[in-house]
């Protein structure tokens, strides 16, 4: 019994079918509880008023946007080292989710920024690095679309993901050098004395957990779709050959 057993698509799909109902259910529960609690059961911030409530979408989507890329990086490495197709397809499946989460993070940030900072957009390091992350997602997805042979596509996108990760990280610290920050610092860290108040913290963490489970469920679902697509293509090739 090892983790690599699930590199077999049949075993992966069986496990995925068992996990998915729980993942969907828990995700729906977490997001519903987190958002309803956050929107209706927390007090307004004394300076930001009710605009603080966007935090329950903004922070979880940004969390997924970054961690989806990290998951793609791990999946790409597994594909390059052990050549498990499920891994490559999972990376492919995660990319559009990460892209959408990046856009949600940027949009909710802009909506919050307009009343609070007086501007939709500022060239702040965090905002800028998120925009760069968005570009990396675009390039990654475009490369998947452009290469016809699926294995070559998986290879090339994996290499791009690896190199892109290094450059994305460099960009993250380069923009710190280049511009002054407007975005607030981290306020959820485990190792800091001063974080945001527990009143906001608890629903936020529930919402983050809900978004993470949603990501898990979506990746499992989309990977299953990719596997089915790959199989149907293989079948149609075989049919063509026989007729």
């Amino acid at each position, binding site marked *: 019994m090892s983790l690599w057993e699930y590199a077999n698509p049949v075993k992966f799909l069986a496990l995925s079918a068992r996990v998915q109902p729980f993942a969907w259910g828990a995700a729906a529960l977490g997001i519903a509880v987190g958002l309803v609690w956050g929107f209706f059961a927390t007090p307004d911030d004394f300076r930001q008023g009710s605009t603080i409530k966007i935090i329950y979408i903004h922070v979880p989507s940004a969390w997924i946007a970054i961690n989806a890329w990290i998951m793609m990086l791990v999946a790409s490495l597994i594909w390059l080292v052990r050549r498990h197709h499920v891994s490559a397809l999972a990376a492919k499946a995660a990319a559009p989710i990460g892209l959408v989460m990046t856009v949600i993070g940027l949009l909710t940030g802009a909506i919050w920024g307009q009343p609070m900072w007086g501007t939709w957009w500022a060239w702040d390091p965090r905002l800028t690095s998120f925009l760069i992350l968005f570009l990396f997602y675009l390039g990654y997805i*475009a*490369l998947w679309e452009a290469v016809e042979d699926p294995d*070559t596509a998986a*290879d090339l996108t994996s*290499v791009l993901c690896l190199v892109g990760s290094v450059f994305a990280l460099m960009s993250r610290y380069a923009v710190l*050098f280049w511009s002054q920050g407007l975005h607030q610092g981290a306020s959820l860290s485990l190792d800091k004395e001063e974080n945001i108040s527990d009143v906001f913290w608890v629903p936020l963490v529930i919402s983050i957990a809900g978004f993470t489970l949603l990501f898990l469920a979506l990746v499992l679902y989309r990977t299953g779709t990719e596997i089915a697509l790959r199989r149907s293509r293989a079948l149609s090739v075989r049919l063509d050959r026989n007729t």
Partner: protein
Amino acid sequence: MIALLLRDLKLALRAGGGFGLGLAFFLILTVLVPFSVGPQSALLSSIAPGILWLGALLACLLSLDRLLALDFEDGTLDVLATAPLPLEAALAVKGLAHWITTGLPLVLAAPFLGVLLNLPPEGFGWLVISLLLGTPALSMIGTFGAALTVGIKRGGLLMSLLVLPLYVPTLIFGAEAARRGAIGMDAETPLFLLAGISLGSIALLPFAAAAALRMTIR
């Protein structure tokens, strides 16, 4: 390796247009900027370092699709891949040839275009140094991008989409060094970081480019 370098240089020189095209593009872009933002010399001198860096970057990008595509079509890359010379070294040489034919002329031309954009006198030295340190990174990153997209039909636009985000750190540090130099601030820190990116790219990216190329021509 030297033979390969000389071959690439000769091809670039004699194939017509390849050598001067990037330079001409750089010149035209610089000439167009005052038309688009207006001829006020104060404004131009404050944006000059950034414009020159952006122009050099785009001129580099423009010549990338010739870097490997022709060799891919006529089978030279297959020969290189099976040659005793490691593919990594071959690609490093190709990056070097691209830098000599594109990056170096841009570095040499930049001060003259700086005059057009009213670059402050203190800025010229820093501009040239920052371009000299930064353009090798642009060429190597470009070689990686070209290796990644060489097998794709009409991959030119896709390559821009892939390569431009990778250019971000180089552009930030390079333009920042040139800008700080131009207004008399200390420009050494961004220059060191820029040199670090260039050295890192030269050391590591040939391996990534060769890996990508092997996947395409396998």
